[in-house]
């Protein structure tokens, strides 16, 4: 991109002058002289490793540790100075032969060039709401994926660490949830290649990318920047740019860290110990007899529970499955480039063992970028293969996964019996399972993935300022997983072993290609008019095949491959395809660099939509005014920048199944005369009118910088209305179907985002702060023809857990209003009751006032997951060669539905329970805390969702603290090996401040839809990670 300089001479004159100078250079080529100098940063610190090149020649040197350089150049030659993280600078050689050159860091530079959709643009010329992060903002966070590194960094981008699963993904929402059924993940675009990605808590599509390879991340938030992605832009777009080769000397960077992870004590389940549980079970019998006016004898109490004092703490199974686990990462990056060919190669290895035993994630990544130009042709090739192995278990599957049963198994049973693991864990009248350690060790899933990204492009300058670029991008995924369930190990609720050995195998492969042709016209006309226009045509197609085989009746545990199984119980093989055909165009125009206009349009045709509605058009317009460049503000010396922006546009969301517009016909078999008779019937109801949901958004923003840019501020207001929402609506069962995808309803997301960057101290001691805060309000404006509320979710009792209704946010918690317990006979007689209520059982509010407590009819809104605001703050300090940064983020005003109470508070006696249950009602004389019900009858209602399960989810998390030390140049210069060397140590997830009783209030149940936010159901715990690391350049 061009840097427009404010010059006192007219441009034409300048060109002439340059030409003359060039001629002079040619003529005076022999008249070389020695030019020496020092390169410093904006604070006057010497910069080592800066490449100094004499433009148009091969002469090039690198500054030493003291920032000094020396080379031969002629008067009039142009020296260029390049250094990563700093703006390039050019200088014409004059009479001065001893120079001092200051380079300005990129972030502080208003003329920063940012990556936008289908191109680049100067930040100053942007009209949309666009946020940028560079590698240095995210380098300290130890994580496998870029998603986790974004947390707390950008206003309006809410990254929730929903799981600690090694290799798992985070949940990312940009400007709230604008969709209730089509997914609210943003679109991820890696080097121009829009990936299909649906996040799972155990799998993360962004694992394809080594975060160390990332140069910058741009987040597009408003419609003027996202509308060019048409039917995929509605949830925001994240553009990721990887490192590429640069002109200059070869540069080798090596980064490595290693560390260990631990699950913090805070928030671990607080279960009864062995003595308490035996006592609890004994009292259960006593209370049951007492309610019938009887006293039990010893024979009525199971032997194991008769003498609680015989037990001590017993076994805390949850602690037993956890461990301190190592994590390490190595990354090597080589860049080399000349005028004509530039390349970058990187290799990475990431190895994270899980804090839950026998789990972990390993990944090898490679990346090679080569780019070259021959005359007017520029060619590039980019290859990025990655291979990963994930060892996981069936985590986050309600109360049957190992982390759940490690909470509710009997604390009375020891981990080891006679020096061996106790094979089966249970106590009388309790649910049991095999030893959780055996389950983790032997019944884990091994998942191997190969992913490759390949892109190639050719760009040709047809005439001056007009370029055509064609690119072909391919991504390929091959994944295989295998699980073997041996005969001697059973899961929860199963009968005692032996079980019949069985296995589950999956194979998945997917190919996605994108073919794209772009025509770009970039022209500055005179001094006033700057024009950038693109038109493009793209076609994208994905084909995937998913195969799964359940095999059983293995004769023994010796051979695990499917050939050893006698029976294939189920096998499926599913091929899915989609395609997208698009035309796009954009015009950026600026007048005198003050008045800015952006207009975009995209037309998308998608195979996913019904034939009646296959094509859609998505326009947008944005305007900007660089007010600070106006004459009347130029004299205001403290004001460095003031820009007003406004935009309006339309974007879409196409994230639904591939063939949902048509009714599927599925197989099913019957038997006649003892022989299988194949049958078929419709399995789903299609909707030929199906189309994308569309999102209209306006945005108004201000960018300002004051006091020599020491404080900069960005404020955005936005208002987004999503209409024709795609969702899988429950429909009348009398139709023969339970649900169907429809376009219906309307949702509003509006809010304010504020981001402030401040240089607090900039002398010997430096201190910068970046702070962001976002307020989003989510409101349903319409749902369907009758505006019936949508009830969703499923409690342990089969009732709904969430409600979405007009005038409210999406997915509020919906359940009983808990009032306590029936304290005494009088209370019991005078209060509304359910069919099974007894004295001391839970007492709920009779919402419909009919005197009977019943599910759903007596449900009310009891909370919401959406926060009042989210915020993040990064403070960076520097003193001499030390640097310290602290990243904090927080969520305020949200609530969490602790769904795990389904078993943590289950007083049936079949599960171990939390210590709160010690304070239960036993009789009118021992009423406990008045909130915890009796173990006598009437327990069913207590298993449904109530206001007692809703907790405050506000938190502040110190995400990362990093302390670094940059070795002084004079030490390095002696080694002659290192150009730069930095040592650092960090703590990730250092502390959390919250009232929430669980471990992680920033949580969501695995696989839950946007209609069911905020459920906590025993997710893989988040670890606190301590690391030490080194970054060096050679």
């Amino acid at each position, binding site marked *: 991109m061009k840097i427009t300089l404010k010059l006192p001479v007219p441009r034409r004159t300048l060109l002439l002058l340059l030409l003359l100078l060039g001629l002079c250079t040619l003529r005076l080529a022999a008249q070389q002289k020695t030019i020496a100098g020092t390169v410093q940063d904006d604070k006057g610190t010497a910069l080592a490793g800066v490449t100094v090149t004499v433009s148009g020649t091969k002469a090039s040197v690198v500054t030493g540790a003291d920032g000094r350089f020396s080379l031969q150049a002629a008067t009039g030659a142009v020296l260029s100075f390049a250094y990563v993280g700093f703006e390039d600078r050019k200088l014409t050689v004059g009479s001065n032969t001893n120079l001092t050159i200051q380079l300005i860091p990129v972030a502080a530079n208003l003329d920063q060039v940012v990556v936008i959709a289908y191109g680049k643009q100067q930040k100053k010329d942007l009209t949309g709401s666009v946020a940028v992060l560079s590698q240095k903002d995210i380098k300290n966070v130890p994580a496998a994926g870029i998603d986790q590194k974004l947390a707390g960094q950008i206003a309006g981008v809410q990254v929730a660490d929903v799981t600690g699963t090694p290799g798992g993904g985070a949940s990312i929402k940009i400007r709230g949830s604008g969709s209730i059924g089509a997914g609210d993940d943003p679109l991820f675009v890696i080097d121009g290649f829009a990936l299909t990605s649906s996040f799972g808590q155990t799998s993360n599509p962004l694992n394809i990318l080594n975060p160390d390879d990332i140069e910058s991340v741009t987040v597009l938030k408003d419609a003027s920047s996202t509308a060019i992605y048409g039917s995929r832009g509605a949830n925001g777009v994240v553009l990721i740019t990887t490192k590429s080769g640069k002109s200059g000397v070869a540069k080798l960077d090596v980064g490595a860290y290693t560390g260990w992870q631990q699950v913090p004590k805070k928030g671990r389940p607080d279960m009864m110990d062995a003595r308490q549980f035996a006592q609890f079970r004994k009292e259960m019998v006593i209370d049951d007899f007492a309610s019938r006016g009887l006293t039990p004898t010893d024979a009525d109490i199971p032997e194991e529970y008769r003498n609680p004092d015989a037990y001590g703490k017993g076994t805390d199974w949850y602690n037993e499955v956890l461990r301190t686990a190592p994590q390490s990462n190595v990354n090597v990056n080589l860049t080399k480039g000349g005028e004509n060919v530039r390349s970058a190669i990187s290799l990475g290895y990431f190895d994270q063992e899980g804090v839950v035993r026998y789990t972990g994630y390993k990944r090898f990544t490679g990346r090679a970028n080569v780019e070259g130009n021959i005359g007017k042709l520029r060619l590039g090739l980019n290859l990025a293969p990655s291979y990963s192995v994930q060892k996981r278990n069936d985590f986050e599957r309600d109360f049957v996964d190992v982390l759940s049963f490690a909470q509710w198994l009997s604390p009375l049973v020891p981990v080891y019996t006679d020096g061996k693991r106790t094979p089966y864990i249970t106590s009388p009248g309790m649910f049991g399972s095999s030893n959780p350690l055996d389950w983790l060790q032997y019944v884990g899933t091994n998942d191997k993935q190969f992913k490759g990204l390949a892109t190639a492009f050719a760009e040709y300058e047809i005439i001056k300022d007009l370029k055509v670029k064609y690119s072909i991008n391919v991504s390929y995924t091959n994944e295989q997983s295998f699980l073997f369930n041996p005969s001697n190990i059973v899961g929860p609720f199963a009968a005692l072993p032996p079980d019949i050995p069985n296995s589950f195998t999956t194979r998945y492969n997917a190919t996605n290609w994108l*073919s794209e042709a772009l025509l770009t016209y970039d022209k500055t006309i005179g001094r006033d008019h700057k024009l950038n226009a693109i038109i493009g045509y793209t076609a994208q*197609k994905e084909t995937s095949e998913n195969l799964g085989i359940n095999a059983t009746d293995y004769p023994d545990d010796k051979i695990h491959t499917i050939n050893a199984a006698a029976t294939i119980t189920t096998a499926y093989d599913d091929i899915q395809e989609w395609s997208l*055909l698009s035309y796009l165009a954009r015009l950026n125009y600026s007048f005198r660099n003050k008045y800015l206009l952006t207009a975009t349009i995209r037309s998308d045709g998608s195979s996913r939509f019904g034939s009646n509605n296959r094509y859609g058009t998505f326009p947008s317009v944005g305007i900007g005014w660089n007010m600070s460049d106006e004459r009347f503000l130029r004299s205001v010396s403290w004001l460095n920048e003031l820009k007003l922006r406004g935009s309006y546009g339309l974007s879409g969301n196409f994230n639904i199944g591939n063939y949902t517009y048509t009714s599927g016909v599925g197989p099913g078999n019957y038997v006649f005369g003892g022989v299988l008779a194949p049958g078929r019937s419709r399995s789903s109801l299609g909707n030929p009118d199906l189309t994308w949901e569309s999102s209209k958004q306006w945005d108004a923003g201000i960018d300002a910088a004051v006091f020599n840019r020491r404080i900069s501020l960005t404020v955005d207001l936005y208002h987004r209305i999503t209409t024709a929402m795609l969702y899988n609506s429950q429909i009348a069962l*009398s*139709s*023969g179907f339970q649900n169907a995808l429809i376009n219906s309803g309307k949702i509003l997301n509006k809010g304010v985002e504020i981001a402030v960057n401040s240089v607090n101290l900039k002398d010997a001691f430096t201190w910068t702060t970046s702070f962001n805060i976002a307020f989003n309000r989510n409101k349903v404006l319409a749902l369907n023809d009758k505006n019936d509320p949508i009830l969703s979710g499923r409690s342990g009792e089969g009732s709904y857990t969430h409600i979405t209704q007009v005038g409210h946010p999406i997915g509020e918690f919906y359940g009983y209003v808990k009032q306590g317990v029936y304290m005494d006979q009088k209370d019991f007689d005078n209060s509304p009751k359910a*069919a099974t209520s007894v004295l001391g059982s839970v007492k709920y509010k009779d919402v419909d006032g009919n005197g009977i407590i019943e599910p759903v009819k007596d449900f009310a809104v009891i909370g919401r997951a959406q926060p009042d605001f989210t915020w993040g703050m990064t403070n960076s300090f520097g003193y001499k060669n030390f640097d310290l940064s602290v990243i904090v983020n927080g969520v305020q005003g949200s609530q969490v539905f602790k769904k795990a109470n389904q078993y943590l508070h289950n007083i049936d006696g079949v599960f171990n329970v939390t210590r709160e249950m010690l304070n239960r009602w036993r009789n009118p004389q021992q009423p406990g805390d008045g909130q915890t019900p009796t173990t006598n009858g009437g327990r069913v209602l207590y298993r449904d969702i109530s206001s007692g399960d809703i907790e405050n989810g506000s938190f502040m998390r110190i995400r990362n603290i990093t302390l670094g030390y940059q070795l002084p140049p004079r030490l390095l210069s002696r080694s002659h090996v290192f150009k730069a060397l930095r040592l650092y140590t960090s703590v990730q997830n250092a502390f959390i401040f919250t009232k929430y009783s669980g471990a992680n209030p920033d949580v969501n149940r695995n696989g839950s839809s946007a209609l069911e936010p905020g459920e906590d159901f025993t997710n893989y715990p988040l670890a606190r990670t301590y690391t030490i690391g080194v970054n060096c350049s050679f």
Partner: protein
Amino acid sequence: MKKQLYNITGLLVLLLVFGCKKSFLEMDPQSTLTAGTFFKTASDIKQAVNGCYIPLRDMGRIDYWLFGEMRSDNTGFQFNKENRGLETQREFVDEFLTGATAESVLDLWQRSYSGISNCNDVLGSIGGITMPDSAKNQYTGEVSFIRAFHYFTLVRQFGDVPLRLKSVNSPAESRSEGRAKTDMVYATIIADLKEASAKLPVKYGSTDAGRATRGAAETMLAEVYMTRKQFDSAATVLKDVITLGYSLQADYKSIFDPANKNNSESVFELQYSGILPELASSFMYTFAPYTSGSVVTGDVNTGMGVDNGWNIPTQDMLDTYEAGDKRKDASLATGFTDATGFVNIPYVKKYNWGFVAPGRTNVNFIVYRYADVLLMLAECLNETGQGAQALHYLNDVFGGASIRGRAALAPITVTDQTQLREAIAHERRVELAFENHRWYDLVRTGKAVDVMNAHGVQEKQLKSFIPAAAFQVTANKLLLPVPQREVSIDNLQQNPL
């Protein structure tokens, strides 16, 4: 320069033209069929007809016994103190505590209408497809019978229900026109069954055994008439059924033997097979006490828990059998013997014929059989004042066997209409025990409220776990509540409580 520009632009234009082939966006699923490509040929229709039987088999696993048998005085459940998971779903059905949000009620509703939708898809498309008349008639008959089967279940359990007789092809058509009056539902059922009777064959070859027959359609039609108190009409069709060649099995027990599937006494039975999990039955497991380990099932690899201990015979049922009735021992056991000795928990054993693979049995479930036909005919004759003729069928000699205790008991001789009515009702209760008829018989004969209240008093005396609110049976409680989901989504009126 100009030339180059033209070249490149030309290339770009070509790309645009070639790229935007329309077919690029048209994709049909490769691994599933769609409604647009199915329902086109005779072979498609044959498969679709087979598909119509599947919901019946699936509902046979739970829904039919839960609402047809366990709701009656014949059976209850074994109280599972540890696992209360199915309290609201199943125990409440037995105890008359079921609410409108119970999933078990929703399942009954949903699976029935899903089955009806399958039938409507066939009936809506078969007309335009070329195939031999015999096949077309048979398919139409089978599907009409199955649709009537679903509506007959629905109308008896819920009263007025939405009447859906056409395929629903888009979400816009999904909502019904509200609950149709019972009379209208019955009119549809009768029309479907008449169509089925007229079009169905009397018998199939062995490879098609299990398909609906004329006898099946007529037997159901008779039960419909009897439910409507049209005993004359019922008698007329039943008299046709007895000309179709059915005969009684001499050995009561062998009627249910999987080695004797679709035998001469069988009129319509749900077909199961142990060869695949989706095809298998598991009544033996469901009805076995959950504390019986492998003693009852003989299967050490299948654990017992919350899904076992259902449809447990009540004390009242045990006491109903006359001394010497051979059917008692064939139908139930009074307990089982394990390491601790004899455990006094009765269970249904009619369907206990071993397993094919762990958890899978080969046993069919009979919906209608010839003994039922004879008992219905006797009842119709008694109700129309032809007691003597009724006795003829009761103590029948068709096929050389007597129904009464399968030859062990003395014949019925009472001719007083009321006494004979009682005798026939008793005979039905024991002969057809655990075959999902008792609840409907109680309701049809107007005895349900009295019988179930008395039964509740007895049950509460015997079982301390039954809540005080249980068994408050009123006329309104004879109908299930319409699922709350449908009250709101399908705009339906709720039944009175």
